[in-house]
C-alpha cells in the first residue's frame, strides 16, 4: 500500500511517473527512439558493385580489407578518444554537416565508408552511420569491433589530431 508521506514511497512514485511520462511521450513524438537500440545486421560477403543503399555491420577482417583498399574510415567517438588513438587516416568531425562536407571533398556519396567507435558495446558508429545514410551516403559499413579490436590486432593507427 502506498503511503504518500513515506520518503521512499515518494521516491518510487517519482520513478514510476517519470517512466510512464518518458515512455508515453516517446510513443507520440515524431522523433521517437526505440526503447532498446536494435542491433545492426552483419554480412558475410560484401558486394561493392551493388547500387542499393547498404548499411551493415562488418568484422575486423572485413574492415582490414577495406583499409587495405583505401576506403575512408570515420571515427564516431568523442574528440578525447580520437586524439588518444585512432585508425590511421580515419576522419572525425563532431558536426555532421562539416563531416559530410569533408567526406565529399574526398569522394562521392556512392563510395564506401567504414564507420567505427570504441568497442562492440558502443552505439556511436551506428548512430553516425544512420545520420550519414539520411545525408545520402549509399555504402555504409559499421565496424562493430571498433578501436578496441583494431588496436588489439596492432593494425595501422595513429594518435593526435
Amino acid at each position, binding site marked *: 500500500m502506498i503511503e*504518500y*508521506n*513515506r*520518503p*521512499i*514511497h*515518494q*521516491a*518510487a*512514485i*517519482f*520513478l514510476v*511517473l*517519470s*517512466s510512464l*511520462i*518518458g*515512455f508515453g*511521450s*516517446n510513443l507520440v513524438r515524431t*522523433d*521517437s*527512439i*526505440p*526503447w*532498446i*537500440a*536494435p*542491433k545492426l545486421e552483419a554480412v558475410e560477403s560484401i558486394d561493392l558493385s551493388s547500387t542499393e543503399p547498404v548499411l551493415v555491420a562488418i568484422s575486423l577482417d572485413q574492415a582490414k580489407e577495406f583499409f587495405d583498399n583505401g576506403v575512408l574510415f570515420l571515427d564516431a*567517438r*568523442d*574528440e*578525447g*578518444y580520437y*586524439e*588518444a588513438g585512432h585508425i590511421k587516416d580515419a576522419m572525425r568531425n*563532431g*558536426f555532421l554537416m562539416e563531416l559530410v562536407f569533408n567526406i565529399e571533398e574526398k569522394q562521392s556519396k556512392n563510395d564506401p565508408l567504414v564507420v567505427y567507435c*570504441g*568497442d*562492440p*558495446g*558502443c*552505439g*556511436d558508429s551506428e*548512430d553516425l552511420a544512420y545520420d550519414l545514410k539520411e545525408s545520402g551516403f549509399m555504402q555504409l559499413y559499421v565496424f562493430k569491433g571498433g578501436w578496441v579490436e583494431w588496436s588489439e590486432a596492432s593494425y595501422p593507427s595513429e594518435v593526435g589530431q
Partner: protein
Amino acid sequence: MNKYFKGPIILICRILLGGIFIYASLDKIAHPAEFAKAIGNYHVLPFGLENLLALTLPWLELLAGVALITGVMIDGAAIMVIIMNIIFIFAISQALARGISIECGCFSVTTEGGDNIGLQTVIRDIGYLIMGFIVLYRRDNLFEFYPKSV
C-alpha cells in the same frame, strides 16, 4: 529520520536545486536521441540500454525539480536528486579515471565542445549532492504543501 538543518538555507537549496534540475532536463527531453549518445559516450551501460535511460532520466530530473520548488513530496524528490548525483559522480569519475575527455551531457546535449567533463564537474555534482542532503535532513518545513513527511 534525524533532522539537522533549519533556516533559509533549506529554501535556497530547494529553489537552486529545483531550478538547476528543471533547466538540465529541458534540452534532454527535447532531444532524446542526442542524450542517448551522450550517455553512450560514458561507456557504463551495455549498448541499447542508454535509450531507456535517455527516455526516463530527464523526466525524473524535471519532476524532482518541480517538486522541490513547489513543495510537493520533497523528501522523495531529495532522495532522487541524491541518487542521480551519486550516479553522475560515479559516471564522470570513471571516465576521468580512464583519462578520456567527453562532453558532459549534463545541461545541453545539442552543442559540441561547450561542457566537457573535468574535476570541476565532479565538484559541482558533489555540491548538488550536499544540497540534496541538506533538503532531505531539514528540520524546517516552510512552504511545504503535500504531504507532511513522517
